[in-house]
């Protein structure tokens, strides 16, 4: 299995939010793990967007 590295740009305020999520110890122990966890959860919870339905912008 290969892995793919995706660079997600965040600022210091978003970093604070990620700190809070890390402190919860439910979604990962690093910022990267938390982002990955949330991303995957979103895709799992919203298969409609994966099927090509356009999101509401």
């Amino acid at each position, binding site marked *: 299995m290969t892995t793919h590295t995706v660079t997600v740009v965040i600022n*210091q305020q978003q970093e604070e939010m990620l700190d809070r999520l890390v402190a919860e110890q439910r979604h990962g122990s690093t910022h990267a793990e938390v982002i990955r966890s949330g991303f995957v959860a979103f895709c799992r919870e919203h298969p409609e967007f994966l099927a090509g339905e356009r999101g509401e912008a």
Partner: protein
Amino acid sequence: MTGRDVVFEHVLEPGTGKAVPVLRGQILRIEQLGDGQCADFNAFNLHDYKEYFHTGRTRHLHGLFPKEGDMLWSAPPRERPMFTIIRDTVGTNDVLYPRCTGFLYEYQYGFERHTNCHDILAESIREYGLTPDDVHDSFNFWMHTGVDQTGHPYIKRMLAAKGDYVELIAHFDILAVPNVCGADIFSTSNFELKPLKLQVLESTPKERERFLEPEERRYRNQRTPADFKQKEIRVMRELERDASYVPEWPVYPIVTHGVEVELADEEYALVDRLRANGAFGQTDGAIVRHAFFSWWIEHYMQGPKHLHAGE
């Protein structure tokens, strides 16, 4: 409802309004005396008039047509619930349209003199030393409105009838200012101005227990003048630059950096599927960030929710 003492009672005749104190825990009641009259409404903190009702935050939190159970919020940076609508027998209210003005009737309809909510509100608050500049966008009770497919607002026929009423409980001491809307050439009040009955009532202990929000600030960002760098209210109308001014931005500079997120093959395939969707961005990083924040908002956002997944 029994157990409520009447503190104040007044009939708002067409062309008039009234500024009336409503203390914390008291109930403001407005009742239709005819068939269908819109009441425009302003509200100020009785002890600090610079805190006043804000249609924008109310609209943001409760939508274009607030209803029973929703709140009327004060303007940033105070942002406290001023009232909760505890009873609304019709359910058509509006926070989209601004108050009608003398300008509007002259510019659009050629009236040099016409009843209008701004001037009625201004005359009402003059009783408390406030000026026409202190009138703000109104909460429009019973105004029945919609938005068409092009995003333009429109006014529908008034649905309220004689005997319909709204009741609001005050969360802190407020100067409430309802007026009989002056619009008689629209369906706002079905082309006829009618009186409204205004009452201030003492709430029952049960109502206070059920509805009252804490008066004190619950969040650090519900600010008071004590938090302001400039605490004094200007008394001069002329504006002059402060030569000693040096900006102190709350958060500055904004610094960004990259977080390297490792995705397995099947997870990375999700990125491509969201890219094909088109609503999540085009680069890998933008797509993962959009989906992550959408998840976070859905699971962590507090208060009335109005965001949609994938927004």
